[in-house]
Every structure is written in C-alpha cells, then in structure tokens.
C-alpha cells in the first residue's frame, strides 16, 4: 500500500503535448478510476506511473519516493494490460511466476505463492495450460494473478475488460472489487466505460484532452459535474444541455426563442449572460399544461427501455429528453408539457464550460 502523488505532470511526444499538467493525489489503499474518451491521455498517465512512458515534466511519487528516474521494476507497481499481454509460450503457472523467477525467488516459495494466487482467482485447474487454450475471462484472470503474485504496492489496470463481452465484464468487475477489498492495495484503473468507472471507483478522475476535468467521488461527479464536458460525458442517457441566455425578466431563452422559468437559479441570472443549462432526463417530467413554468414541447419519438421510456421531444427548437414511467401511448407529433425538477439544474459558462455555482 502506498500513496501516489502526481505533481504538474506533462507529456510531450516530439512537439505535441498530450498531457498538459496533471495534479492528483491518490491515497494509500484507494481505488481510483481514470475515465475519459479515447485519446484523452488517461492511458499515458497510467503508463507514466508504471514507468513505461517517460515523464516530460513534473513529478510522480509512489509511497513518498519520486520515481521519475526509476525503472518499472523498481517502482513496485504491477499492471494488467488491455490485451492481457500473456507470454504465449509459457504455461499459466510460468506466466504467473515469471516475475518471481526474474526476482530470483526460490522455486519452492515461488510455487507456493503462484498456487495461492491461482486459488484466489480460481485458476488452479488451468495452471499447466497455455494462454492460447484459455477463454477470454480466464486469460484476464491470469493477467490479474500475474499482477497479484508480486504483492505490489500499486495495481495498475489499463482498460483491462475492453476485450470481454458484457456479461463477463460485470463478473470481472465484482471480482476486481472483491480483490481490492481483500488486499487493500492502492489501485489505478483506466477505462472509457462510465458504468465500469462509477461502480468501481472510490475516487473518479475525469480527463479530457490531456487535462483533468474533475476529481471526486462518483456520486459527486454525477450530481455536481464541474464542467459541461463532465456533465455531457457522465450519465446515460446523456444530460440535456441547452445553450442560451437570460432575458430581462430572468427567463432562460434558448433554441428558437423558447423560454424556461428557472427561478431556482436566483442570483446568477444576469440578463444577457450566455450560459449552458443542463438537466438530466430524470429531472424532466411530463406534467399538466397548467403547471407553473411548464414547457410546451412536441414528441418526436419514444425510446422504450422496458421499465421506463425516454421521450425525445422538441421544445421550441431545442431537443429535450425526458425519462417517463407512464405507459400511455405517445405518438410522434403529440404535444406534451414538461417541467424541470428544481434540484436537477446545472449551469455552465458557455465560454469556458466551467460550472457556475448557484
């Protein structure tokens, strides 16, 4: 167990900067997930922690030691790779034990440790097979066992489940969660799958275009997105986002002149201020025409989810999605009225996308 401190870390490839200065503190024993779209620099950051990528500028410390100049083997990290990266010519036993062999751990001890780890991920029946003879899930477990056997200070996961099918992914998720609970090792997990991120993380780091957008608990990030990017990226179905401005009466004007009554945003409604208003679909409800502040809209189509449904509608030129639990038939073109839940409104500056608190 070790804490990881990342201070002002930058990464350039030739002349292009891919990471623009990242500051993160990871507590000992914490499970941290770095989430972001592909190409945002999340894997690069992870690989810099691992020592597989040089740090252009800044400092990474593991357990209080600055590791910038250390070889991967000297950093006490173990890594699970996206494509497993198992040695194809070695048996499962040898794959798991290779790090110990390299470290010149005596054979007897090596065998015992391999066996113990193999048991903890239910791999003993497969110890003498080669990776080619295993299923995807089994290979994934070998990759994890290989990381565990060294009893590292830090676990690094680089999109480890992206090659698995949906069902296995869920199973592996709970397995990783269980292992973390049992071993308590500091873990950094990189993914682009937000559900994976939300369910695994103690702490979530959202990255975009080489910058950290937000760091926080999953619920915090979901409920209080720090930027328009995070608001848009987290949550499925995605948050409704309307670009617009406030008029003299304090109404939010959007689309083709649609107006919304957003009195709860008191204090930030300077007339003429250009903003992005965000509301999650579950914060949009169908309501009667006489409700105060109801927004008239026209149904475009309805997406059935089984237990509930999503109403895609047009409100004066702005697309709006509402989560609906009713089952009454709604045809395309039907007029409806929608209301926004008070607590669910998010406001971002149109200029830089940062959150405007209210």
């Amino acid at each position, binding site marked *: 167990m070790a804490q990881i401190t990342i201070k002002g870390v930058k990464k350039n490839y030739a002349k292009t900067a891919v990471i623009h200065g990242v500051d993160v503190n990871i507590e000992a024993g914490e499970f941290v997930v770095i989430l972001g779209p592909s190409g945002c620099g999340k894997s690069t950051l992870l690989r810099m922690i*691992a*020592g597989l990528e040089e740090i252009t500028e800044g400092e990474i410390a593991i357990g209080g030691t600055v590791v910038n100049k250390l070889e*991967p083997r000297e950093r006490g990290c173990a890594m699970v790779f*996206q494509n497993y*990266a198992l*040695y194809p010519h070695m048996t499962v036993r040898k794959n798991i034990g*290779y*790090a110990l062999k390299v470290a010149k751990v005596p054979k007897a001890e090596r065998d015992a440790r391999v066996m113990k780890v193999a048991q903890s991920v239910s791999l003993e029946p497969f110890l003498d097979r080669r990776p080619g003879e295993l299923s995807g899930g089994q290979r994934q477990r070998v990759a994890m066992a290989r990381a565990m056997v*060294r009893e590292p200070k830090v676990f690094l996961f680089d999109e480890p489940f992206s090659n698995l099918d949906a069902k296995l992914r869920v199973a592996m998720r709970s397995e990783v969660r269980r292992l973390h609970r049992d071993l308590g090792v500091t873990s950094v997990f990189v993914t682009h799958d937000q559900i994976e991120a939300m369910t695994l993380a103690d702490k979530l780091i959202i990255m975009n275009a080489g910058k950290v957008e937000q760091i926080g608990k999953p619920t915090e990030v979901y409920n209080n997105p720090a930027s328009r990017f995070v608001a848009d990226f987290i949550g499925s179905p995605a948050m409704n986002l309307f670009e617009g401005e406030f008029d003299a009466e304090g109404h939010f004007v959007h689309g083709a002149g649609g107006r919304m009554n957003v009195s709860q945003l008191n204090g930030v409604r300077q007339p003429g201020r250009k903003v992005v208003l965000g509301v999650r679909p579950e914060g949009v409800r169908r309501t009667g025409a006489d409700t105060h502040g109801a927004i008239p809209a026209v149904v475009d189509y309805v997406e059935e989810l089984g237990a509930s449904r999503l109403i895609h509608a047009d409100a004066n030129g702005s697309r709006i999605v509402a989560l609906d639990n009713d089952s009454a038939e709604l045809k395309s073109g039907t007029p409806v009225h929608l209301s926004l839940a008070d607590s669910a409104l998010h406001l971002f500056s149109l200029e830089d996308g940062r959150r405007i608190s209210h």
Partner: protein
Amino acid sequence: MIERSPFFDFITYLAMAFGALVVVIPFWITLVAGSQSLQEVSQVPISLLPSSHLFENLAAAWTRGDLGPKLINSFIVAIGVTVGKITLASLSAFAIVFFSFKARMICFWLIFITLMLPLEVRIVPTYSIAANALLPFQVILDTLGITGLVQAVSGVQIALNWNLLNSYTGLILPLVATATGTFLYRQFFMTIPDELVEASKMDGAHPLEFFFDVLLPLSRTNMLALATIMFVSSWNQYLWPLLITTDRANFGTVVMQLKALIPAQNGTPDWNVTMAGALIIMLPPLLVVAFMQRWFVRGLISRDK
C-alpha cells in the same frame, strides 16, 4: 477450387505431373546413372531404369573425390555459418528493433545495404581482405596516429595480421557477414506486440532476460527457417571456398569436388561414378529442405516482404 469440372481437373493433374517430371528428371538421371556400370552408362540411348552398381559407384566416387574429409569440412562450414548467422542476426535485430539510441537508423542501414551486393559480386576485394582480416583496424590505428604513439612510448610496433586463407574462419565469416538473417529476425520481432515488452518490464525482467525468456522461445519457427536457408546456401557455396582454400586437401568442401569428379576430356567417360558422387553431394541440403519445408517456406517469404 470453384469449378467442379472433371475435365479441368484432369488437365490440372496432367500439368502438375508434367511439372513434377521436369523437376524430378535431373534427380532421377543422377540416381539412374549413378547406379549403372560403365558399360550401361555409356550406352546410347541410355536405359532409364536404375541398375545394381550404386554402392560400388558410391564407393568409387568416395575415394576419387576424397569425399569423407570434404563432407566433414562442408558440415563444419554449413553449421558454422548457420549458428553464427542465427546468433549475430538475432542479437543485432534485437538491438535494432527493441532499443532506442541515436544511431539506430544508421546501424539499420549499414547492415541492410549489405543485402544489395551478394558475395559473388564483390568477390575480388573480399578475397584481398582474407589475406589479413585485421587490415582495416591497422589502417584505422595508423590514421589516428595510435600506431606511432604506441611505438614512441613503448617501442612496440603494432602490426595486426590475421590471415584467413585456408581456415574454417575464412570459409565461414564472410558468409556470416550479411543481413539476410538480421532482416528475417527484424521482420519477426516487429510483430511482437508492445504490450509483451511492457509486461516483461513490469515483471522486472532485464532486456536480456526478455530476449532469452520471451523472444527466443517465440522465434523458434523463425530460427528453423533461417537455419534451413543458411544451411542450404552455405553448403552450396562454390566460388568463395574455391578462392579461399588453396590447400584443398585439408580445407576443401564437397561442392568444390564436383569438378574433380567429372570425367576428363579424353579419359574414361565413367559418368556413373560422377553421378554417384553428385548424389552424395546433393543429398544433405535436399534432406534438410524436405524435412524443414513447412518452416523454411514461411521464412523465405517473410524475409523479402
């Protein structure tokens, strides 16, 4: 096969059989003539069926061509070249593919340009270096003034001399000094996924441990292919051994003996003995190719991509 036409199938078999005939006839004639007596082999037209004198002809060729020691020499050279090539090629390809250093591309080209000019094309100058393989270093030392310096300081004159004429080293080294194997290994190493290298780094393995524990076992097929190609090509060398061995009795290879087996212009036309000798000389590389076909075909093709 898309068409199911019996007639076209028949044509196909006919053509393939004819092709096989074209390929096999020289082998067959060699075997047939090698098994006949002097009388039988001198008949016009010759019988195309083997006779019963194969072993006495083999024995005659064996003594006439002094094939025993020459076979040993050929094996030494072929195995030396093969082993040397595999060792050097895998090491240098490892350096070129997996290491990052400033002169990497220069080294790459320095080695790969040698693919362009086969030994036969530069035979005259290469021969001259064989008289003293250390000459380039002597010249370098002389030019840098080190020779003079050492002589002034210690009174010892540096005179590097290493004559390769009539030696196994001379037969082997120039054949090792080309890029064929390096290229083959490089092609293979480039298919190794990055993540395997990284996994071994995370496992704490030293580059050499990665080389011996991961790369070499993975490139076994590649090695078999290269071994076949190198064995065949070095066994079949003719011009270079001819030049470098003036002492044929001790250092001659078996392929050089072929000419000595041919009947003299006005001597007895005992082609039966000649052909029996040719049979012995052809056999080792033919066996190697026949047994290793699966691997070496793959190696040949990937070499020249």
